């Protein structure tokens, strides 16, 4: 009744026994048997990734600062996860779609989205500050896992239209527990949708540790239950990520069906600025992960390989400073709040009932503005 040895058979679907790793913690190249059969990515691409990671880290630091200044309602930091977020974007073409979560603002910036627009949601200006169609980036998704079926539907639709399009959907370790994760992976497999699901397993869902989230050997082991090929990778190793994710995107693009990739990483900061992280995890654990910092690891490797010069490093730092300098004054401007804007785009055309409500709110605001004068 079952053909366990067909090309979707068990052996081909399970991930590597341990996470694919190209770099040691010190940025040295690991032995071949840790590479899981993947190729070392070209050095230029890695240098670009390094550059983007530096920019991402600075951006992230600035965003955290902005919360202290009250310029952001809240900020979930990407610190420590830059390799995942940058590699996840770097392997995409312009025509591909990205489906990020609230955590993935560094991915947005890497995608080329104006950082001020990228911070729209967290600034409280609008729910999504950028144009998803123009940027081929879905709005950052807050309800856990719910964007995954969107990615599947969009990728399937594109394939139906004969478009060369891959969807890259990010999700957290916590997000894998939601029913929508399951339904999305199953739909992807049944409809053969060109999607890469990238689980950023940062070992916490707010305070809930991985051990409370899953008893599976790895989250990548979930793939086989859908007939989806899966892989696990060291999420703080940008080289391994580039190797695995570009292979995944290529395979998916070629029509070999969806893939699930788990990146083992760590959330260096609190869940958000509002989260008292010391309540639930030891500083010593964080310290261990400082050692595995993805940025330093890649820098060491590239320098040793002669692919990164002091000038390159300075150029990256400089680009990062420029970005921050560009965004800072713009973030210090109070966004314009137009009461009527709330009523736009609820429907293509407002209903009679909405027009009444809009008129009321606008009249109130006008009155208040009059009083203020």
């Amino acid at each position, binding site marked *: 009744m079952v053909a366990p040895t067909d090309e979707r058979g068990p052996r081909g679907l399970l991930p590597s026994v341990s996470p694919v790793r190209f770099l040691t913690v010190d940025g040295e190249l690991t032995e071949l048997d840790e590479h899981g059969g993947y190729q070392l990515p070209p050095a230029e691409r890695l240098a670009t990734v390094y550059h983007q990671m530096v920019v991402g880290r600075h951006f992230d630091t600035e965003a955290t600062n902005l919360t202290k200044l009250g310029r952001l309602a809240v900020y979930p930091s990407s610190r420590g996860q830059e390799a995942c977020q940058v590699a996840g974007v770097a392997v995409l073409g312009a025509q591909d779609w990205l489906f990020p979560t609230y955590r993935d603002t560094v991915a947005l910036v890497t995608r080329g989205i104006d950082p001020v627009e990228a911070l729209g949601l967290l600034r409280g200006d609008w729910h999504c500050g950028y144009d998803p169609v123009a940027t081929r980036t879905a*709005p950052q998704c807050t309800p856990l896992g719910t964007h995954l079926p969107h990615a*599947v539907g969009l990728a399937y639709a594109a394939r139906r239209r004969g478009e060369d399009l891959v969807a890259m959907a990010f999700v957290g370790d916590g997000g894998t527990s939601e029913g929508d994760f399951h339904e999305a992976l199953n739909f992807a497999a049944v409809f053969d949708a060109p999607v890469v699901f990238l689980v950023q397993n940062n070992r916490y869902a707010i305070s809930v540790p991985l051990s409370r989230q899953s008893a599976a050997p790895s989250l990548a082991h979930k793939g086989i239950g859908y007939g989806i090929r899966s892989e696990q990778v060291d999420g703080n190793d940008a080289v391994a990520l580039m190797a695995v994710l570009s292979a995944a995107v290529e395979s998916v693009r070629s029509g070999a069906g969806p893939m699930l990739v788990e990146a083992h990483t760590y959330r260096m900061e609190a869940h958000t600025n509002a989260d008292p992280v010391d309540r639930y995890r030891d500083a010593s654990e964080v310290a261990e992960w400082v050692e595995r910092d993805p940025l330093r690891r890649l820098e060491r490797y590239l320098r040793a390989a002669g692919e990164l010069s002091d000038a390159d490093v300075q150029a990256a730092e400089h680009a990062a400073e420029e970005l921050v300098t560009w965004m800072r004054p713009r973030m210090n401007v109070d966004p314009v709040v137009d009461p009527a804007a709330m009523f736009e785009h609820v429907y293509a055309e407002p209903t009679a009932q909405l027009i009444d409500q809009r008129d009321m709110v606008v009249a109130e605001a006008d009155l208040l503005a009059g009083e203020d004068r």
Partner: protein
Amino acid sequence: MTTTMVQALNTALRDAMRADESVVVFGEDVGVLGGVFRVTDSLADEFGADRCFDTPLAESGITGFAIGMAMRGFRPVIEMQFDSFAYPAFEQVASHVAKLRNRTRGALELPMVIRIPYGGGIGGVEHHSDSSESHYAHLPGLKVVTPATVEDAYSLLRSSIDDPDPVVFMEPKKLYWSKSDTALPVRAPGLGAARIARPGGDVTFVAYGPSVPVALDAAEAATEQGLDIEVIDLRSLVPLDDAAIEASVNRTGRCVVISEAHSFAGIAAELVARVQQRCFYSLQAPVLRVAGLDIPYPPPLYEHLYLPSVDRVLDVVDQLEWDELPNRAV
């Protein structure tokens, strides 16, 4: 030729699919089987498995998948097999379908239709007879449409598929096999225009979907008491045709809202609240409701006791503060 509501819906889907290649139909059993109510009968045959297809059994997945397809240029029409089996999709509907246009300031629109067979009266076992329209009507960003006639089934479904906004299209199961001799296609005004199903001057009945025939029967029966009752068929709950209701009640001075959904915090309450506000000085009596009981929908042998009935409607009409009933006044 006699057409049932199921056939009219089927024809509407077929015509919409012929008119626009981007219309796709999917859900549980909508393919070869043609849906458990046969609303999608033979669409897979005519349009192929690419345009009408079965999915795994996962309503949240179906809805999310439709969102994704709509984001890439399709106009999905999805079927939830029964009212209460749409509940697993509630998060997708409330947090995404209803909000995507607004969240993205119009950059992403969702021209999708969620078809939901709803309501009781067909002897269904538990979880097969819920009237869930009030939940959807309460979520801004959704349109909520429901036909009461064969003609409207066609016309409203076509309009819903054409609409740029997501529409929850609620199909009254009880009326699936109701019939009409009108030839299709027929097109009525778009979404948001109510219909005077029966003109009258003494009382206004406001009804929709499965309750319209009950309202009409009750209005007919009330002629025995000399009462001339107007019946408004709302057709769409969102947008709502306030003007039509207001004009009627200002004429009649009395209003009864009829709805199968649980009474408490249901859509009927909204209709009552609006009427008493907009027609306060015309009202000769409080606006009353005949709605579903506030109990879980009962088993088949009990459902006649649950559903708004002609007798129950007439009892409520009697409570409309008549000094003397019109026929006695003659």
